[in-house]
């Protein structure tokens, strides 16, 4: 690894909800890790509710968006509720540019997502 800060993904189980706390940039170097964690939780563990806490994600590129879309599609197939929390301006912009913002359930705070 030459220059990149490692992406940190940690998972918390709150009842039947798994909350992923993501720290770092989701780009070509790191989006496979996000994809793997998401699909494992949704497809393999069939967790009813998955929340992606992205409040510490400063940047997400098209490969990161693709991973989120894969997660969303898998969640629809599995009957899992998939939510995004704390989108940064950069993350919100790329979802708007790709016209995908409206297809995700987004919340400003984790509390709002858990109550939703």
């Amino acid at each position, binding site marked *: 690894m030459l*220059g990149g*800060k490692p992406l940190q993904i940690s998972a918390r189980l709150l009842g039947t909800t798994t909350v992923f706390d993501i720290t770092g940039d989701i780009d070509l*170097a790191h989006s496979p890790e996000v994809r793997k964690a998401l699909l494992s939780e949704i497809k393999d563990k069939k967790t009813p509710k998955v929340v992606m806490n992205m409040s510490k994600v400063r*940047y997400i590129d098209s490969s990161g968006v693709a991973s989120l879309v894969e997660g969303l599609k898998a969640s629809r197939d599995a009957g899992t509720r998939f939510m995004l929390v704390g989108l940064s301006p950069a993350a919100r*912009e790329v979802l708007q*540019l790709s016209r995908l913002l409206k297809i995700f359930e987004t919340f400003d705070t984790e509390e709002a997502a858990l109550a939703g």
Partner: protein
Amino acid sequence: MGPDLLLKVELPSDPSMLCVVRGAMERLTETFGFSAPEVRSVTRAVDEALTNIMRHSYGGAVDRRIEVSCSRVSKKERVQGGQGFEVRLVDYGPKIDKAKLRGRKLEEIKPGGLGLHFIRQSMDVVEFKRARGTNVLRLVKYLQAEKLEGT
């Protein structure tokens, strides 16, 4: 070094270098005078262009050469809008099929195919050419004040 050249770097096609380039682009475009959203636009376009080179031109090989140069485009050279920030990205991969440079329809909800769309949305000029065995992508973003002056 020409008077308008701001930065020239050569990097390997390793995805772990993307954050290094993004950091440089953020600082450089801030210094150039872009607003925060414009800084994010230019940074995003360069990151996506590099990602495309790494994935498609070099097929995931991490040790190939990419050149990135950033220049101030003077008003004399550009009649469209005035002073702008130009980025040239050069790779030594095979010739790109221009028919594949379209991206996907945004109506489709599926992963992939968004990078080129982000680049086009983020920059004022996007030009691709094949020159001397290299792929050259030229991106330009004009300063907002200059755009308003030119309209």
